[in-house]
């Protein structure tokens, strides 16, 4: 009951404390979000005061603005209400929907205009004070409903989450929040092959991760689909198989948006299917298609990787310090090839949360006997200081020569090219031509992928951080002044013990009305930051990407 007494107060206190924390502790939320926070903080700080004064009549006007989350929460508490109240509630919900649509329109318009902060100011804040107001109003109006309303945020139902999440989308990236990723295989169409079902979950959980790996895995799964496929009566293979495959593709794309390489491979496969002569017997047609898939994987990925590794390894020289970002399989292969050629060089891997793809790369290279240094992205200025070359993997190369890759790549490329002292470090991208696309990327906002923001929360090893800090604090004074160490040592202990049991401050970020988390997957590196793209068709400047793409698709 204690928490239900004053929801407006709890929410305001939360907003006061939380924005301060992310600014200091979280490195990940993008600058755009940190920009917004102070603005909203000031607004919400004002909001509780008027809300308490609001009369019962204001409730109808204010309640509508409360986002759908309230509607669902309120729906669960409908039972004790009188019919009159029910009617009122239905009316309020309808108004809420309208208001929400209007808000969404405003936010969308503002977001599309490119102003990140103004968009948030116009679109979002009105929802927060009104929600508070609704809380305050309901508190006065209906004592019976109250406890439930207050407790609703802590004990959320599953049905609640999608609506809450929509509320939590970062305005500039609003268009990227599609459907949430599929969580189970329940509800998948019966046409979806079991291999594809499994692959979908693997893709979602990053078990199969990386552009090439996803492409190969998809093709292999489709090969099994084709193997177990029988043409229904009355249709031909070349016509029906494509639709059959598109069911599989739709399923895969609900698990995780398809990569450029997957799209290219699927396009090639569909073309091969449609060019199957309808008069060929089904068995031989299927055999041809399976062979096509095998050839595609061999030519476009396996052999291509070998060729790229060979030619990129030539660029590695004795004494080089090579910086790479996250874990690209092709970069790994390149470095291992160079190592096998007897070249002596050091590798500095820069990694980032929440996927930590660089860890595997670090281990693989260290096991192979290379000299590896591993640091996270905040150590980039140190890592780049003695770098002589930067090798990057790619998710895709766009037609304007830009590199579309794991978020953070652009930062690494930029630090390499704009290093203080004017010394340029060559940035080399290793990329198969199957990852080339005819799309053009001007920024990383229009096309991108947003992963579940919870990944940012759960992966945070907060207890470990405090655990690490604690022993250091007492030792520091020891080092400085031996005598005073004893007196200063006990000081940090109580704070540590109070911090340790507390969960991550972000763990219930969904209840914090002013907190948004952004887990973006990719970014775009300008072509000027890329010196060279190593493909299986040779080394190119980034400006040659569209030419090679045109040729490799025409072949």
């Amino acid at each position, binding site marked *: 009951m204690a928490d239900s007494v004053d929801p407006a107060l709890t929410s305001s206190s939360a907003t006061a404390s939380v924005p301060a924390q992310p600014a200091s502790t979280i490195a990940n939320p993008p600058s755009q979000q940190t920009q917004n926070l102070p603005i909203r903080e000031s607004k919400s700080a004002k909001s509780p005061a008027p809300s308490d004064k609001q009369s019962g009549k204001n409730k109808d006007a204010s309640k509508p603005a409360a986002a759908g989350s309230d509607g669902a929460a309120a729906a669960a508490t409908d039972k004790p209400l009188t019919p009159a109240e029910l009617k009122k509630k239905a009316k309020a919900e309808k108004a809420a929907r309208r208001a929400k649509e209007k808000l969404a329109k405003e936010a969308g318009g503002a977001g599309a205009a490119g102003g990140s902060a103004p968009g948030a100011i116009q679109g979002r804040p009105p929802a927060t004070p009104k929600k508070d107001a609704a809380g305050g109003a309901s508190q006065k109006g209906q004592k019976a409903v109250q406890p439930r309303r207050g407790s609703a945020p802590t004990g959320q139902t599953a049905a609640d989450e999608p609506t809450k999440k929509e509320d939590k989308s970062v305005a500039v990236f609003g268009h990227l929040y599609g459907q949430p990723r599929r969580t189970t295989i329940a509800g998948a169409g019966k046409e979806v092959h079991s291999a594809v079902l499994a692959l979908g979950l693997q893709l979602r959980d990053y078990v199969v991760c990386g552009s090439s790996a996803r492409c190969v895995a998809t093709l292999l799964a489709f090969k099994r689909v084709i193997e177990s496929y029988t043409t229904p009566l009355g249709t031909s293979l070349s016509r029906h198989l494509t639709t059959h495959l598109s069911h599989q593709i739709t399923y895969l794309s609900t698990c995780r948006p398809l990569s450029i390489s997957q799209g290219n491979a699927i396009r090639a496969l569909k073309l091969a299917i449609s060019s199957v002569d309808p008069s060929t017997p089904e068995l031989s047609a299927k055999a041809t298609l399976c062979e096509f898939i095998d050839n595609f994987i061999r030519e476009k990925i396996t052999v291509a990787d070998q060729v790229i590794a060979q030619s990129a390894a030539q*660029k590695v020289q004795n004494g080089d310090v090579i910086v790479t970002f996250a874990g690209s399989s092709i970069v790994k292969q390149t470095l291992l090839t160079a190592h096998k050629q007897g070249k002596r060089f050091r590798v500095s891997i820069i990694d980032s949360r929440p996927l930590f793809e660089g860890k595997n790369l670090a281990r693989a290279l260290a096991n192979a006997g290379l000299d590896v240094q591993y640091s996270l992205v905040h150590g980039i200025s140190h890592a780049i200081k003695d770098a002589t*070359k930067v090798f990057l993997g790619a998710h895709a190369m766009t037609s304007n020569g830009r590199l579309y890759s794991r978020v953070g790549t652009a930062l690494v490329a930029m630090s390499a090219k704009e290093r203080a002292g004017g010394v*340029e470090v*060559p940035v*080399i991208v290793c990329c198969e031509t199957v990852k080339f696309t005819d799309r053009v990327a001007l920024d990383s906002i229009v096309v991108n992928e947003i992963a579940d923001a919870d990944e940012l929360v759960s992966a945070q090893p907060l207890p470990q951080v405090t655990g690490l800090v604690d022993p250091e604090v007492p030792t520091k004074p020891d080092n400085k002044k031996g005598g005073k160490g004893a007196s200063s040592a006990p000081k940090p202990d109580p704070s540590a013990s109070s911090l340790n049991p507390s969960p991550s401050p972000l763990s219930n970020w969904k209840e914090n009305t002013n907190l948004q988390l952004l887990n973006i997957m990719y970014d775009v590196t300008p072509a000027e930051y890329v*010196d*060279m793209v190593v493909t299986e*068709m*040779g*080394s*190119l*400047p980034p*400006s*040659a990407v569209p*030419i*090679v793409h045109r*040729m490799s698709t025409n072949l």
Partner: protein
Amino acid sequence: MATTTEGTAAAGSKPFDIVATYNELLRSDPDITMPIAAIEALVHVLTHSPSSTISETLDLLEKSTAHLKQSIPNPIGLSAGTDLFQRYLITTLQRPGQLGPAGDFKAIRTHLLSNGRLFIRRAKESRQKIAAFGRGFIRDGCTVLTNGGSRAVASLLQKAADEEGGPSAVRFRVIYVLSSISQNIEEPSGEPEGMETVRALRAKGVPVSTIPESAVAYALGKADMVIVGAEGVVENGGIVSRMGTYQIGLLAKAIGKPFYVVAESHKFVRLFPLGQYDLPIEQHVVDFKSADDIAEDKKKKQHSSVDASGNKPIELPLSDSVDFTPPHLISALITDSGVLTPSAVSEELIKIWF
């Protein structure tokens, strides 16, 4: 160099020495470029060899190319020619029809040889084409800064000078940067590279000023554009050229003058240097020495002159050293296939290779 050619000629039972042919071709014809000399040498190899199968021909070609590349201190220029010829052979042989793998080998061979000669003739004409394309760049009253002994630049400037008195009389001046390095090698009496062009231009009534390399920054303010030649045009659109070109490019960029490169399209090399020190040649331009090192070097030199063993890697003399001008310094490349931006070079190269 002479020792290596002698050595191979003595060791191998080859009746024909490609390196000697290549050097002879370069010496006998002042107009010939390195890639063309290489192609011509390869055509000579094919005519002299009794090869009777395709794989034998290709094998011979590969071996002599490798041999040629090893024996020449700076193989960047010639590798453009050999690669081009090899590529041409392979595409001709892969083509279906009478000249394809199924056809009569003798016919293929004669076809190859005649086409190889045709190719050489065309390449020689390309300089005229370039002059025609590039003439428009030199306008009335402008001043051109140039360097080195590029024949393509010379022919372009002379073509523009020829117009004097004609319908499109172009009056222009030339600032000629003369290399100081070439003066202090073995023959100090020898005139610096490019003097011939200077004389020719002066004879045609073009006012020419010659400046040392150290005066480039000073003189660039008076120039309207920079036109240089190139030994090889690499894949990202940069050029490998006579030492000193890079600094002219940097200065031109800093002062904001257009920097044009004149190069035949057969000089396009499949090479992608990442910087100055990523070129596939050995050159010791920056050579740190202490007094002890110099003394030791002297001792070694005396020793080796007694030994006369030519087994060491061939070093490029300082006067022949090259540098790499990155593409962002280049405004345009004037080639026989048109005026290209640096990024279009890779497109041209890809067209040739695939």
